[in-house]
Each structure stands twice: as structure tokens, then as C-alpha cells.
């Protein structure tokens, strides 16, 4: 259960939003909507604990995330605008590094399986800079599949994906939410997923 209370965000001189309240429980997902520059990305970064809010607080199971620290980060998966994928490394190396950084055990076999599931079979050993933009995003999707996290915070996860990949990602999110997980995402398009709350900022 992620609860936000009276959140406010100030960027430079501008107040992006204030008095934001919402709660997302297990098995639910939240679609954050807003115009360009409304503060969607800022909100997600605040929720992930990367930036402090100008006012208000964020609770995870009733505890402020600042106090939870490591315990909150262990349950969280955040994917931002940038791919966080190293061009010089292969998809396999990227995936294994991400898993070790998240402190979750991932065998090479499991990693290969996840990459194959997202259509990267045969490209595991190719440096990422030889892949297309869409294929790079697929490396990230493979990370979603292998990471055991309760809370997903995804910033524009559908950009640069082809139809097939969009379907795969949607299936992944549905699976995650139905399994009792929580997902918070931003997207310009309508999201082809059932249910979900909408938050307009």
C-alpha cells in the first residue's frame, strides 16, 4: 500500500503541483496523466525517493519511505526516461549487473530465458550499441520480468516499443498487478490495460 499525503513539488521558481493525495493498494495500478511539464516525471521521482517533496509525505504500508530506506528500495523497481543500459555491455551483462545491484539472485540461465522471452535471442552477446532503440527497451522489459519487486514505478514505459512489445509489456504489468503487486505509470497514450485508477496533475 503506497499512500501519498499533501504532496507538493517545486521546480526552480515554479510550483508544479501541491496538495496531492492518493493511495494505491495491492493489486491496483495508477495511471498518472498530465500535460508536458505538469510534473509527472517529478512525481514519480519523488515517489521513488530520488527527490524529496517540497511538502507532504509518502508512506509505504503506513511508514514514511525516508525512514524505511533500504527496505523500501528492496521492494521498488523504478524505470526512468533513460534506459540505464550500458552501450558497451551485452544485454546479458546488463541484466546480470542490474540483478546484482538489486541484490536479487539471478542465474545466467534465468537471465537468458528472460531475454529470449523478449525477442533478444541470439543477441545476448552483442554489445547493446548494435541494437535498435526498441530492442534496448526490451532489455529493460526483461529486467521487469526477472526482478521480484512489489512496487513498479515506470516512467513512459511504452515509448519506442512496437505493437508486439507493447502487448508483452501490458501482459507483464497485468501479471504483476494480479499477483498482488502495485504499478504506477505515466503514459501519453491510453494504456491498454483493464482497471486502474487515474490521477490527473
Amino acid at each position: 500500500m503506497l499512500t501519498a499525503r499533501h504532496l507538493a513539488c517545486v521546480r526552480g521558481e515554479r510550483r508544479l503541483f501541491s496538495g496531492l493525495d492518493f493511495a494505491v493498494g495491492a493489486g491496483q495500478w495508477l495511471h498518472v496523466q498530465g500535460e508536458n511539464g505538469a510534473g509527472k516525471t517529478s512525481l514519480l521521482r519523488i515517489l521513488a525517493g530520488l527527490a524529496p517533496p517540497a511538502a507532504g509525505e509518502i508512506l509505504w504500508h503506513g511508514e514514511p519511505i525516508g525512514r524505511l530506506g533500504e527496505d523500501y528500495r528492496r521492494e521498488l523497481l523504478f524505470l526512468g526516461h533513460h534506459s540505464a543500459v550500458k552501450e558497451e555491455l551485452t544485454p546479458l551483462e546488463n541484466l546480470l549487473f542490474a540483478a546484482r545491484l538489486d541484490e536479487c539472485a539471478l542465474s545466467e540461465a534465468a537471465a537468458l530465458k528472460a531475454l529470449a522471452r523478449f525477442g533478444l535471442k541470439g543477441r545476448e552477446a552483442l554489445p547493446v550499441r548494435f541494437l535498435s532503440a526498441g530492442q534496448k527497451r526490451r532489455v529493460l522489459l526483461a529486467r521487469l520480468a526477472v526482478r521480484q519487486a512489489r512496487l513498479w514505478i515506470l516512467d513512459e514505459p511504452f515509448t519506442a516499443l512496437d505493437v508486439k512489445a507493447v502487448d508483452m509489456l501490458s501482459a507483464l504489468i497485468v501479471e504483476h498487478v494480479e499477483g498482488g503487486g502495485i504499478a504506477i505509470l505515466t503514459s501519453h497514450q491510453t494504456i491498454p490495460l483493464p482497471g486502474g485508477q487515474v490521477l490527473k496533475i
Partner: protein
Amino acid sequence: MNAVLAVIRRDLLLAMRRKSEVFTALFFFVIVTSLFPLGLGPEPALLKKIAPGVIWVAALLATMLGLSRLFAPDHADGTLEQLALSPAPLGLLITGKIAAHWITTGLPLVLMAPVLGLQYDLDAGALGVMVAALLLGTPLLSLIGAIGAALTLGVRGGGVLISLLVLPLYVPALIFGAGAVEAHLSGLGAAGHLSLLAALLALAVFFAPWATTAALRIALE
């Protein structure tokens, strides 16, 4: 701990794949130290006298060279965010990155220094002291440099700014590092200089990752 090792391993792997960056710093070091005799003349007595200073100043500048690339690529591609969100403490991961930086830029300088020392007519004892001083001093350069790299992350003209911020802070390392060899050559013994360098290193290992992490968090907001 696992995550820290992963960070070190990944940075070393990246350095291996990019090669040019590691070799640029090393070649810079070699060329600068080799140019000084050409500018100053080949008298062995003079060269012996300036050797510690020249080698240390060249080491400072060679370390500075790649410093702005310490965090910038990770910042640009979002890896830094993922480091900050790892369950492992960010300070520890950053220490890992600094360690990798030392292994790829500091350590090659230490290994290359004896060869360059021979060009300056240093004897075996002086070479030994120089290697010891560099071994203690170059991690110090990486640690202090990381603070500057973190502070100038994503800042206009960061590459020039970083030298302005970091070089004044390098002064003690330069004094004790070059002083150790000089003290040995003048028969005073280098123990005092080396132990002061070690003390500075201990202090920096303790404080520098903390300051670097605080600066990185500001850049991430």
C-alpha cells in the same frame, strides 16, 4: 558487498571495452614526464632534483584528465538513479566506483612510474619510495577528485570547473608525495612523509565518499 563488487567489476569491464580512456591518461603521464628533460636540459643532477615534482604534477594532471567522465556517463544514461535505488547504500557503491577509477587510472601510473624514474636517474631506493608514495597518494587523488566530479555533474563548463575545484585540494598530496622522494634523496628518510600520506588517505577514505554521495544526490534531484 555483492553489489559493490558488481559495480567495480562492471566499471573495469567498461574500461576494458573503452580502452582509449585508460590509455589517454597513461600516455599523457608518460609524454609530460618525458618532455621535461627536453625543456630543461639533460644534466643528471638537475633531473634528479626535479624528478619527484615533475612525476607528481604529471600524475595530478593525468588523474584530472578522466575525472569529469567518472560519473557523467552513468548520470546521462540513468545508471546513477539505479545505483541510488539499490538496496545497498549509495555511499558504498560510490566507493566501489572510486576504487574502479583508481584501478584504471591510478594503478597504471604507479606501475609506470619506476620506468619514468629511470629517465631521471633515480636509484633503486628512490624508485621504491616513489612507488610507495604514489601507491598511497593516487587513491587520495581519486577520492578527492570524485568530490569535484560529483559537484560539477551536469554543470555548465564542468570539465574546466573541476580542475579549479580539485587542484587546490590536491596540494597536501603533492607536497607529501613529492616530498617523500626528496626527503629520501637528501638522506632524511621518507617515513614521516609516507605516514602523513597514509593518514590523509585514511581521512579521505572516511570523508570523501560521504561528500561525493551528498553531491550526487543533489545532482539527481
